[in-house]
């Protein structure tokens, strides 16, 4: 834990300029249909030439009322819905929700289930980071990494498909454990993936890490200090790239993460290049976790004793996990019935997106694209 006490003063966001339509200024609408806003994000940019004077995010185009739906479904029925929030990291979403409900029910998933959960979640983290890398590089103009990452992401999706029949919105876990036993050759597949992945990551790095244009486009772009990060509640790789060594897998371990030895990569300057490096390192650390986990999945049941009709006692719980994008939290309130009284999702993308404004002030239009890419937002999660 770093000394975060020095970040305690609050952030000065500054007043929005009153002269929003000055003659030299150009208001430009980026999105909701724009190739680089990763979905239906709309950013209103105030420009002076190419310089960004201010931004305003308009979100909600993908709002489906997930939290309202939750109040009208049983605990079990709501489980697949969470996959549709951050659809590139559906497994993490499911893990967070299942663990939260398990906590509320006061049960615990058996160790074998926890190991399977860790393996799938880490694979999902890799897939999410790969997708991020591909699209981020494409935004900055490098086409080729996209196809490399999609090639390798395919391997992960194949494992998901073999495991649970779905590739993207997996609904892999159930409250109390996992529904499916690992298939024959599951460990072999994962092992094969782990063996080939480092060289693939080297391949991406070869294309980008020392590429002059890439470095020029990302170094010093969208810099955010650790203080601002904490004040804005930014979590995940963005926070770590600013130098805060904070990862929920270490800070408040869940599932089986206590058993594994891995490092939390951190950056120094908090710019786009550091975030890129942090995520690349995270991918390698995920591989390390996988390597430790895959060999020694304990034997035993994969499902805890779960009541047939889930009626958690009256009470409330907040549980959060380290999703690929940051802290993904579930605040679940039970009124003793079969349906949750309230499910609040604390989405990392939503909170991280708030930081866009201070990250791009004074930078150029092209940097906005780079910063949106580096924040790694998924609009399904922002809007829920």
């Amino acid at each position: 834990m770093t000394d975060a006490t020095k970040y305690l003063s609050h952030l000065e966001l500054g007043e929005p300029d009153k002269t929003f339509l000055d003659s030299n200024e150009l208001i430009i609408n980026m999105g909701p249909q724009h190739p680089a806003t990763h979905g239906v994000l709309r950013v209103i940019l105030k420009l002076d030439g190419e310089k960004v004077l201010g931004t305003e995010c308009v979100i909600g185009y993908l709002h489906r009322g997930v939290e309202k739906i939750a109040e009208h479904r049983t605990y079990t029925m709501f489980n697949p819905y969470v996959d549709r929030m951050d659809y590139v990291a559906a497994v993490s979403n499911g893990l967070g929700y299942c663990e939260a409900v398990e906590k509320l029910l006061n049960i615990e998933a058996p160790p074998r289930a926890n190991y399977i959960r860790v393996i799938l979640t880490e694979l999902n983290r890799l897939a999410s980071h790969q997708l991020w890398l591909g699209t981020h590089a494409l935004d900055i103009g490098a086409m080729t990494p996209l196809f490399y990452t999609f090639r390798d992401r395919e391997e992960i999706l194949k494992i998901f498909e073999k495991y649970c029949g779905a590739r993207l919105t997996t609904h892999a876990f159930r409250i109390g454990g996992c529904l499916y036993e690992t298939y024959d050759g599951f460990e072999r597949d994962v092992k094969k993936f782990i063996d080939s992945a480092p060289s693939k990551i080297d391949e991406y790095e070869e294309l980008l890490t020392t590429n002059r244009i890439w470095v020029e486009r990302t170094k010093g772009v969208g810099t955010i200090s650790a203080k601002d990060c904490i004040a804005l509640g930014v979590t995940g790789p963005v926070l770590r790239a600013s130098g805060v060594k904070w990862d929920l897998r270490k800070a408040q371990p869940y599932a089986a993460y206590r058993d594994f030895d891995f490092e939390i990569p951190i950056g120094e300057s908090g710019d786009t290049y550091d975030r890129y490096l942090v995520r690349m390192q995270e991918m390698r650390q995920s591989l390390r976790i996988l390597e430790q986990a895959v060999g020694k999945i304990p034997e035993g049941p994969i499902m805890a004793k779960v009541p047939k009709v889930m009626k958690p006692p009256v009470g409330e719980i907040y549980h959060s996990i380290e999703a690929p994008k940051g802290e993904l939290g579930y605040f679940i309130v039970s009124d003793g019935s079969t349906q949750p009284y309230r499910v609040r999702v604390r989405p990392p993308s939503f909170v991280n997106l708030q930081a866009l404004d201070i990250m791009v002030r004074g930078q150029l239009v092209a940097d906005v694209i780079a910063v949106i890419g580096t924040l790694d937002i998924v609009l399904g999660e922002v809007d829920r």
Partner: protein
Amino acid sequence: MPEETKTPSPPSGGEPKPAAEAPHRAAAPPKPAGPAPEPWNSSMIGRLKEQYGSGIDPLTYLGQNYMVVDSSLIPELLQVLRDQEEFDYCVDVTALHYPEREKQFDVVWILYSHPRNERIRVKTMIADGEVIPSCVSVWATANWLEREVYDMFGIRFEGHPDLKRILLPDGWKGHPLRKDYGIIQQDNEWVQINLGIESGQ
């Protein structure tokens, strides 16, 4: 795909069965009376109690600590928590709606302290139409989170720099996460005007 255990197979054809069916013999009777919240004591609570007296009701449930506080304490207590108790990170701001209660809304702050690696919740109750001071000046992140609470519950935060709807369109009527808002209910007028859909669906 061979499976050697008692677990159901992957959904090759039919729908996945609810997970609760898997361990049949584990159908324990539902526990209506679960663990009850217990009082929570710590040095921090001691300090706060000293300062604010009975306005604070600290509790712990399932190992998670929270305090129910009087709404009059709100901006001040949060400021104290951030400045003196090192809760530098506001995880979430959210609300709950209890329509049958007199003070209809619970507003919940979920806080985390990086130096202490500790998570607490602060909860307060307010009535419908009552305003509550904004804590954007305490944690900048509360900006969008408070906007969302306003959008979904209609709770107004006083002193918020730009309190407007965030997920729903600006002209929308109604606050969908209130319990009296139906799940398929929508602002028919808005839909007709803006989307040109006559039926409203």
